[in-house]
């Protein structure tokens, strides 16, 4: 008798329907599994056999064949154990043989315990498309599965519980979608801007960056507060909406980066990969790619400390996501696209020792400084809107600065600026000022006569590029939004020009870095 069970495979970030068929026929006793299986799926047969025995069933002494289809779809992951076990039990006649309306996933322990797995949220999300009205998932993933509206999920603690449920002898603990569940945790233990002493420039740049979803680069000596600022960025970002939370949680679920037993993510991600990161870990990779660091930062902050120390090819993978908010990875088996719309917050020292241009401490030659800076390519630099160059605060500044403004007050200004943007970009492909393309800038960053003149003379004075002007306009738009003024003024432009200063000047110096 052939039995069929439905489960799913994860391709990139998407779940695809997989049917597990099992058949018991006469022949030499053996357990054969086919269907383009990854090694963790092939190992399932030993776990399944032992779990069956330890749950009180004997494997038939006949030829057991399990086929996972479609046969040309690569299956990897550990959640095929439970569907395989159920399919075998169906073929043995223990449970009903055909269960097309139910999606089953879970990893088995040798005792028959069902362990939590990754990617549950994505599978539950797509279950309805596969024609499955309910899902049996590990009880450890129950919270996660219940986040999807309209889903009906049941958590299994052991194989025995599943069998009892399927034969009508017992119940599985269910969970229901709760539309009123708060998306944001009440108590957010995020680091607060209150703790950052002084550094008004970094604060200002952070506020603008978060308000308009601009990428920012902080340049300064060690101890100037770059990391402190970056780690406090999530605290001034507007609260996470339910849709965003689902989107972010799905990516984390697929990547297996969700803490066990957790439901929706209630905080925006803050990813700070080390500079030894490889291209695959960064962009997403493997021959069957999964999401990388930049996708895990989706909707939040990607913080790259010591930017010039990252490998050049790793940094260059940032180009597409910074431009389009997603990354496409091409492999021989197909293209995989992962969302990657984040605020890049990068930090770097001005030179290898970190103290340039303080010549009492820094002995790097100008060639050293240039070499250090040149690790960052022009195209990457061109995609960063804000560049805040800062120094070490003097002792008096440090001591006389009272407690800094707290994150809540900054966030309220950010939220106001975001609201203005939401109104302006309704029914357009854009969401934030930082997303604007050339045409978008033309349309939404109109200048008056005087402002046009001002930008023109700045263009000549600071030898800007067309791209530089676009960036300045976007940032000026955000500054105006922060002030709540509908038109961009010369003041806004002047401030925005100030944030182009470092990359306009620092990277273009000739014959010595001394001017």
């Amino acid at each position, binding site marked *: 008798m052939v039995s069929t069970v439905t489960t799913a495979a994860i391709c990139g970030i998407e779940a695809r329907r997989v049917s597990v068929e099992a058949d018991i026929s006469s022949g030499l006793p053996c357990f054969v599994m086919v269907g383009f299986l990854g090694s963790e799926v092939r190992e399932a047969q030993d776990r399944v056999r032992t779990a069956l025995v330890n749950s009180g069933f004997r494997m038939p002494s006949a030829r057991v064949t399990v086929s996972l289809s479609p046969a040309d779809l690569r299956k990897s992951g550990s959640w095929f154990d439970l569907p395989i076990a159920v399919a075998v039990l169906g073929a043995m006649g223990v449970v009903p043989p055909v269960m097309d309306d139910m999606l089953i996933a879970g990893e088995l322990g040798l005792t028959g315990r069902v362990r939590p797995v990754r990617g549950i949220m994505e599978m539950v999300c797509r279950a309805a498309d596969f024609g499955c009205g309910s899902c049996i998932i590990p009880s450890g993933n129950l919270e996660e599965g219940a986040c999807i509206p309209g889903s009906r999920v049941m958590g299994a603690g052991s194989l025995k519980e599943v069998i009892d449920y399927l034969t009508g002898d017992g119940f599985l603990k269910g969970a229901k979608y709760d539309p009123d569940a708060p998306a944001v945790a009440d108590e957010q233990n995020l680091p607060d801007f209150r703790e950052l002493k002084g550094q*008004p420039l970094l604060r*200002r740049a952070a506020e603008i960056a978060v308000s308009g979803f601009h990428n920012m680069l902080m340049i300064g000596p060690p101890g100037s507060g770059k990391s402190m600022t970056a780690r406090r960025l999530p605290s001034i970002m507007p609260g996470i909406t339910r849709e965003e939370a689902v989107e972010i949680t799905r990516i984390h679920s697929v990547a297996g980066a969700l803490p066990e037993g957790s439901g929706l993510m209630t905080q925006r991600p803050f990813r700070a990969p080390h500079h030894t990161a490889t291209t695959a870990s960064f962009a997403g990779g493997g021959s069957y790619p999964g999401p990388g660091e930049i996708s895990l930062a989706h909707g939040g902050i990607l913080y790259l400390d010591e930017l010039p120390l990252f490998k050049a090819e790793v940094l260059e993978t940032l180009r597409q996501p910074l431009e389009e908010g997603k990354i496409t990875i091409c492999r021989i088996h197909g293209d995989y696209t992962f969302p990657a719309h984040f605020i890049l917050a990068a930090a770097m020292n001005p030179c290898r020792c970190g103290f340039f*241009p303080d*010549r009492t401490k820094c002995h790097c030659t100008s060639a050293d400084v240039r070499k250090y800076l040149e690790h960052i390519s022009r195209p990457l630099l061109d995609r960063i809107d804000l560049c805040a160059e*800062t120094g070490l605060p003097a002792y008096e500044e440090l001591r006389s600065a009272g407690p800094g403004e707290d994150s809540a007050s900054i966030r309220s200004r950010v939220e106001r600026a975001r609201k203005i943007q939401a109104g302006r970009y309704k029914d357009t492909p854009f969401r934030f000022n930082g997303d604007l393309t050339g045409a978008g800038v033309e349309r939404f960053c109109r200048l008056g006569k005087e402002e046009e003149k001002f930008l023109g003379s700045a263009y000549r004075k600071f030898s800007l590029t067309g791209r530089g002007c676009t960036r300045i306009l976007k940032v000026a738009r955000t500054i105006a939004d922060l002030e709540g003024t509908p038109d961009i003024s010369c003041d806004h432009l002047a401030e925005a020009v100030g944030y182009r200063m470092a990359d306009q000047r620092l990277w273009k110096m000739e*014959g010595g870095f*001394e001017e």
Partner: protein
Amino acid sequence: MNYDAWLCSIPGLYWNMHAKLMEIFGSAKAVFEASEEELAGLEKEGARWIGKIREGRSERFVSSFEKELARKNVRFISASEEGFPPLLRQIKDCPLGLFYKGSLPSANEKLAAVVGARACTPYGNRMASRIASRLAGEGYGIISGMALGIDGIAQRAALEAGGRSYGVLGCGADVCYPSENIELYTRLFSGGAVISEFPCGTGPMPFHFPLRNRIISGMAGVVVVIEARRKSGSLITADLALEQGRDVYALPGRVGDPLSEGCNVLISQGSSIISSVEEMISELTGKEPAAERTEERKAEAVRSLEGELKTVWDRIGTEPSGIEELSFHTGIPVFRLGRILTQLQMLDLISYTPGNRYMKKL
């Protein structure tokens, strides 16, 4: 065969050895023709470098060195020839001859050396290029060591002002050191010359540089020191210049600033102080000091400043100050300060320096 060129081309022989040979043999030709016994006698007296002359007299070297000079487009001038820098000929340790690419200064060309630190400050940078371009405008050729920092800045400024410039190297004239200055090196071929007393292919050894410095000061009538540490090549040049009886001008700096210490010491020892560029030029040329037109225009712009613009302008000095520091002292929040600083830059009153620091434009 040019025997002076031959003797100067032998690798590993320096001017003091040349001088000794001249003292004994009288001419390079006599060295070439000297008998083996004479050389051996010298060697016995302690001149261990005689072996190099033997190598130099080998047929292979004799037949190839002139071809090599021609191939690399390096020319040679002997100290006794017409066209050799006349002031240099007067110093006691004058080289036997010079290799050069480009063209040497003409007999009546006034020459000034502008030297200074490699790691200079924005102040030194601005002053070096202003002084060099003013001197070039007065017809001075600018001599320097083509090093990073002040040397290169001054030489570029001179070329840009339409003047001529000469780079004296501590390596062979066919070697560009430091390699970052390759663009300056090639520009000098047409805008002046690169000069060296060392044979082609010689690398930049540390002890070559003090030797090179005596040629810089020796060629020039005036030596201007922009920024120098107490122990530095620039100070060696200045000391040599004083020994050689040249006018030495030093740019004053702040007490305690390591990069100005050398200059301040020079001033205390009696060098002329550069109190203003125009005054220095007038002293050198004997002309009335020209009123600086740019200064007037600037004064006009300064008078028109109002409110916070003026507050910030008054706070900015000739030393760079950071934006946070300015904000702290003026009480103006950074976002407004950023706007003001951009405006002041657009008025050409202040300039940006690395580290988001700003200083008055000199």
